[in-house]
């Protein structure tokens, strides 16, 4: 019997399964694995305008350059700051929106539709819109603040490092809070209502039940949202490219913008590959940390 095992039903299914997977895997390897692997390889070479765009082996020189590159570390800091602030704001706002949308009220479906709209729209176009809103002369942001008497004269939002960062954060929070609130909303709906009722019977206040039931039970979704958003925010490109182009003065230049400029503008391919590698490794580290957190959380709640 065992001799014919190769042709057993299960084996046949498995084989069919593999065939079904092959096209997808091939595409994924081509578009994901090759570029990443290639970057690792290329990061060991100098390939730039100085070398006539020919690769010349350079060992770890490019990594050496990164260490001494003030602009890379500035962009790194800008990205990290942007990521942390937006993710925190989006989580708080997203949680609020999710809690509201989880209530039953007239017109809830309409509000839900509206609430996911920002997420669905093209970032580049939305960024153009925000650029206009934050225009120093004709922007509505200034106009509203002026009318409210909060400022005395118009702010050149995108012209100042601090306000440009604020503008970017506002735009990103607007754009991606819906994503988080969707995730959290799904989490909220999977929490059985009788839990709240049981807890309420014990005399818990709304805040207590949020803190004691909602938050802990929502933790997996929160961690997943953080992970997703972290990766996305860390790789943000279009919003910044369109709104500030990294300016003023590199104050809003995120890592991906610098990598893009290094590759596509400076044609410093070896160096940009090294930056890709560094960013990639940092992302992996973050993912590992999050995964550990999730699994630890899950095993803890199971006990």
């Amino acid at each position, binding site marked *: 019997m065992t001799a014919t095992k190769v042709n057993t039903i*299960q084996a046949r*299914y*498995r084989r*069919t*399964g*593999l065939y*079904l*997977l092959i*096209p*997808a895997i091939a*595409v*994924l390897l*081509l*578009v994901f694995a090759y570029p*990443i692997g*290639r970057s690792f390889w290329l990061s060991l070479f100098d390939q730039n305008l100085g070398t006539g765009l020919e690769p010349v082996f350079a060992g770890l020189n490019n990594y050496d350059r990164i260490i001494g590159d003030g602009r890379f570390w500035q962009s790194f800091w800008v990205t990290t700051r942007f990521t942390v602030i937006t993710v925190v704001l989006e989580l708080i706002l997203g949680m*609020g*929106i999710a809690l*509201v949308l*989880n209530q*039953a009220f007239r017109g809830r479906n309409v*509000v*839900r*539709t509206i*609430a*996911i*709209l920002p997420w*669905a*729209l*093209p*970032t*580049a*176009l939305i*960024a*153009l*819109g925000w650029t*206009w809103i934050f225009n120093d002369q*004709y922007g*509505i942001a200034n106009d509203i603040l*002026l009318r409210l008497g909060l400022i005395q004269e118009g702010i050149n939002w995108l012209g100042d490092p601090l306000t440009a960062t604020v503008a970017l954060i506002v735009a990103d929070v*607007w754009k991606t809070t819906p994503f988080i609130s969707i*995730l959290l*909303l*799904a989490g909220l*709906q999977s929490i059985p*209502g009788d839990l709240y009722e049981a807890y309420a019977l014990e005399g818990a206040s709304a805040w207590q039940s949020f803190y004691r039931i909602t938050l802990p039970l929502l933790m*997996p979704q929160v961690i*997943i949202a953080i992970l*997703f958003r972290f*990766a*996305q925010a860390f*790789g943000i*490109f279009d919003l910044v*490219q369109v709104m500030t182009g990294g300016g003023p003065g590199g104050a809003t230049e995120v890592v*991906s913008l610098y*990598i893009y400029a290094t590759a*596509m503008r400076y044609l410093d391919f070896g160096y940009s590959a090294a930056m*890709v590698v560094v960013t990639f490794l940092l*992302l992996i580290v973050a*993912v590992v940390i999050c995964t550990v957190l999730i699994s630890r959380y899950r095993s803890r709640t199971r006990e």
Partner: protein
Amino acid sequence: MSTTLNPDSLATPAKPRKLTVGTVLFWLAVVAIVVFCLAPILWQVLTSFKVNEDISAIPNVYFPTRFTLDHYIELFTRRPFMRYVFNSALVSVVSTVTCLLIGAPAAYALARLRPLGGRIIQAGILLITLFPGILLLQGLLEIVQAFHLGNRYLSLIIPYTAINLPLTILVMRSFYEQLPRDLEDAARVDGYNTLQMLTKIVMPLTLPALVTTGILTFIFAWNEFIFALTFITEERLKTIPVASAQIGGTSVFEIPYGPIAAATVVGTIPLVLLVLFFQRQIIQGLTAGAVKG
């Protein structure tokens, strides 16, 4: 089924509301959400219909004193904006369809057929969803160079398909796992082979899921910027986001906000329609893709 949103089943049961401070605050929150989400879009829409004097009026003119379609007309006459719309549509639709064709069977295999290395593949796919496009750009550029794909739709279709594959696979897999296994067993007893079962039983049954996934894929493809910016330099082949971001004005130092606003409106209308019609599916797909993964 537990994490999909079913508006009929509420975590908090509806109670008859009385006008209390709580309800007032609650409705204020609802209004705030609506304003927060809609205001920037509305401002852009209003701008697109304003004459230039209104656009650059100080203090701001909120509602156009005179409605004008000039910016839209300029958009379509000065530039091949129809082409941009067409390019975006073509690239998005083709990559979406390809993605579903490749992704759905793969998702099924992962959900039910337990192929060799399935777990590793799945973990890899999960990881991949987190990679930002910038990490792939340079390598893809080389591929594009090697196969002379520059300024061809394929140079966008392939990356879009690939980038959407992980999400497609994750979402479809979670839908397939919810499918009652008995149905497939019954089909096997009836004599369907795997492919027939996929096409005749599983796919038709998960058509809503395919639509859901397809919409997500379409949205991502329509909105993509960095590859479209890099792999397409020919004007006729540009997609809407890139073309809009590159709209030039009549003077070097002036930015044409009217046409840009109009471009924004034109470029987002298809997506607004999608969201209006498929709100539920989008939410479902997103949660299935992220939470189940």
